[in-house]
């Protein structure tokens, strides 16, 4: 197992100041998010909830450095994402962040094992194969290493995605509606697995969801309405 990279003694792993996002539309500028100020401590689990179009996924994208804000800043583990270029942000994502998406987002041309190895290889970590296989075994897919996403069920694909997210032992895990595409039983199984892995790795979890039951499993809930923290 590889050691986690972040400093556990540091209090805030994510800090935002006056974070805002405005897009241009035919009718003029449209504010999607404004004045978001957050301090998220390492190891916390936070659910971001809100109605469709409230700006949840936009906030997640900005926190993860997948998009740039119009105003304000995002600092992760002492590194100001908003001051970095795209390649700098990509390096931070590889080092500190894991993702789980609603639509699984596995690369269709790669096998389950290759999908999980991918972030390790991008980070230049040796023994990627062994680490990935161990984790796939941990999520119950040790017998399906060479299967491509097309040959796996939705639940299995999401388990591969979980293995891929945790394989680098990230400091932060961003999950965007991770059960949105699954039936309730499979979804429940995935959520259990997610929280188990989160606990094992002491990862900071930031979860976007519509599901109040799921939100309740997190230590803290952020409610977004019309682009602002409610």
């Amino acid at each position, binding site marked *: 197992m590889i050691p986690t990279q972040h400093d556990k003694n540091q209090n805030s792993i994510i800090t935002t100041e006056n974070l805002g996002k405005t897009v241009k539309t035919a009718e003029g500028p449209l504010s999607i998010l404004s004045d978001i100020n957050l301090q998220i401590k390492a190891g916390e689990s936070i659910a971001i909830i809100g109605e469709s179009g409230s700006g949840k*996924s936009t906030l*997640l*994208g900005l926190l993860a450095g997948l998009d740039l804000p119009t105003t304000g800043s995002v600092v992760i583990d002492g590194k100001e994402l908003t001051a970095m270029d795209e*390649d700098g942000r990509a390096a931070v994502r590889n080092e500190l962040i894991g993702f789980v998406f609603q639509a699984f*987002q596995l690369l*269709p041309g790669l096998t389950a094992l290759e999908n999980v190895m991918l972030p390790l290889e*991008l980070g230049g970590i040796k023994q990627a194969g062994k680490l990935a296989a161990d984790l796939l075994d941990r999520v119950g897919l040790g017998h399906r290493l060479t299967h491509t996403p097309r040959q796996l069920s939705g639940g299995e694909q999401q388990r591969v995605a979980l293995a891929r997210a945790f394989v680098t032992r990230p400091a932060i895990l961003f999950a*965007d*509606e991770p059960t949105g595409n699954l039936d309730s039983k499979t979804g429940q199984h995935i959520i259990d697995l997610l929280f188990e892995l989160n606990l094992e790795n002491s990862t900071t979890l930031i979860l976007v969801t519509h599901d109040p039951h799921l939100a309740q499993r997190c230590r803290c809930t952020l409610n977004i309405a019309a682009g602002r923290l409610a």
Partner: protein
Amino acid sequence: MNRIVLASRLLFRDGRAGELTLLLVALVIAVTGTTAITLFADRLHRTMTAQAADFLAADLVISSSQKIPRAWLEKAGQLHLKSAESTEFSSVLIENDELLLAGVKAVSANYPLRGFLKITGTAFKAAQTVHAGPAGGEVWVDQRILSMLRLKIGDTLTVGEKALIISHILTYEPDKKGNLYSLSPRVMMSASDLAATRVIQPGSHVHYFFQFSGSADAIGAFNHWLKPRLEPGQRLLDIHEDRPELGTALTRAERYLGLSSVVVILIAGVAIATATRRYSERHFNATAVLRCLGCTRRDILWLYISQFLLLGMLGSISGCLFGWFIQEALFHLLQNLLPGQLAKPGLLAVFFGFVAGLAIFFAFALPPLLRLQRVSPLRVLRRDLEPLPTGAWLVYGLAVGLIGLFIWRYTDNLTQTLSILGGGAIALCILSLLVRGLLLLAEKSVPRLNITWRFGVQGLTRNTGASVNQIVAFSVTLVAMTLSFTVRNDLLDNWRQQLPEDTPNYFLLNIFPDQQASLQQALLNHKIKGSRFYPVVRGRLVTINDTPVQRIVSKDSQGERATHRDLSLTWSASLPEDNRISAGQWWRAAQTGQVSIEQQLADNLNVGLGDKLAFTVGSEQFDATVTSIRSLRWDTLKPNFYMIFSPGTLDHFANTFITSFYLPEAQKYLLNDWVKSYRGITVLEVDALLKQFKSILAQLTEAIDYLLYFALLAGFTVLFAAVRASLDQRLHEGALMRTLGAGRTFLRQTQFIEFALTGFCAGLLAVVLSESIIFALYRQVLELTYSPNPILWLVLPIGSAALVGLSGYWGVKEVANRAPLAVLREAE
């Protein structure tokens, strides 16, 4: 009606969203290319045919040994054809106690219907161009008539019983016949004076030429009407047969233009197929929704086909317009080279472009489009449910069928078309197998590669089927481009070799043996480069293995023409340059009674090695045995012979000599001296003919170059279409990779490696295929000599790797730049 509205609305929305841009561009290029080339080739062909007609002095000529029936002329009149007539005969002229056998040509008022005559008042000085023959009472003569008969301009020359005033020296007549060796000096007079000469009596040896000109349709109709009515001794003159040097160039150029059209169609077709595939894939989701809402498979098919029909018409009309402007621009660029009188662009060619455009569009777009009707409605729930691909037989069958039709149209030969298609199909299968082999090799090497290379290679090996298709598509495009380029170069080289700067522009004939040595020395003294001096004996082939030749030859064949007149017979100890032995052996020792016969004539007369041929010279008959068969080129403007005998065979017959040489403008005064010093020799000037021929070749070269640029443009469109076709998947994967931490440099490198490898494989296979096709093409269609091209083996794979690699790098650069948040948005 609602459906049409829906189809139009969807088409309009797709168009506005940029979904159709690439497809429309590919279609417009295909139609522009087809229309421009069809229009250009058709117009150039008609212009060149008209120009070539100058060499016949008409569009159609009947050569006859007697007057043609009045009904024929009436038929020509009904078809609104213009007609002229020339009568040729030999006559002995006597002036100032000198005798000279002259070739007299009496021409009617309309002569020449095409082309022009050149006359001058002073020998070998600048001539003026005129478009009618001499007026009644006047005569125009060769310079040699004046020197031989000691006459000057303004003197009287008596032809038969009619005295005529010599008003000009004739330096050029368009339809001088190719039988160079028996040429007597020319006397041209008006047909109105012919009766008064009283030369033509029953039984006189006279030859009539009836010339016609008019619209292509009327000439075609007249030609069709005439053919079954021709009797022995009458035949239609044809530019391809009667001017072999010009005919060969025209035939090759026509085939090249046709080939270029097929190349552009094929390349643009690949672009259309690729762009439609992307269109189709991008509409899977929308189609699934439509099917959920109750659309049947037939509704779906109708919806997309009607959209494509609208798109096809839009693209075809725009393509036709662009094609029109492009051919106008081409003719504008070439205006200095082309004759002043250009044929008008043919509306039929535009219509052909439009119809061909729609046919090309559907032949290449239909297979990927048909996939849409197979989209399952279940796809609304499971996005990974992809419709079955269209059957390979339909994909290739439609495309190959259409290309076959085009090839058939241009070669007009079913066997040739089928062998090209069969060869192409076999080549495609071999190509696909080779690509699979290469990909397998690449896959095996993956574990040993670093991550960048591994991802680059895996980009190819992940989806072998798609990679094979893409590499084969690039290969076909490259093959097409290479073919255009290589054939063009070899064709031009071949023409240049055929007519180098020092191509002979003069022939000297009727040189007596006692003049030969001195004349040869004179040429040497003035450093004039010429061919050998060949002895010439005039004789006629009478029997083959004791069977009279007239029983063997078929009507209107080369054999008939060669045996109906005296041939120039020669002898030689060595094989003349440009001649090749195709069967038998050239004589080693001087053994008389052997003959070497020209290949085509041998084929025509069915003569083989060991056959006994009998000839008459004057009243004497002699035999010779065929010991070799030679192939040679008639289009080199050097003395060529059907029959060459072993030395000694013709010794006891009187002979003259013939030679040809290149005389620069500055040395032309020498001709005057020689005509005076070597009495009796004939000077035949082919300068004007040569210049006109070179000008036609220059036009063709330019035209061919522009066509090549067009093929290249189409090739680049394919490249771009193919790169863009995979863009959606690449954007998604790129965004995901960046989400997981991949840097932009990494993404760019892997993409460059993947595309460069695609290009390299395609280039490697293209060179193998091109060389095979060029070999077959040269042997079967263009009749050129094949030699392997080592530079191609180096340049094509490397060039293709660089080109495809860079295009890929540039074409998908947004993959590395797009914000990865898009992935999350899609998931929302």
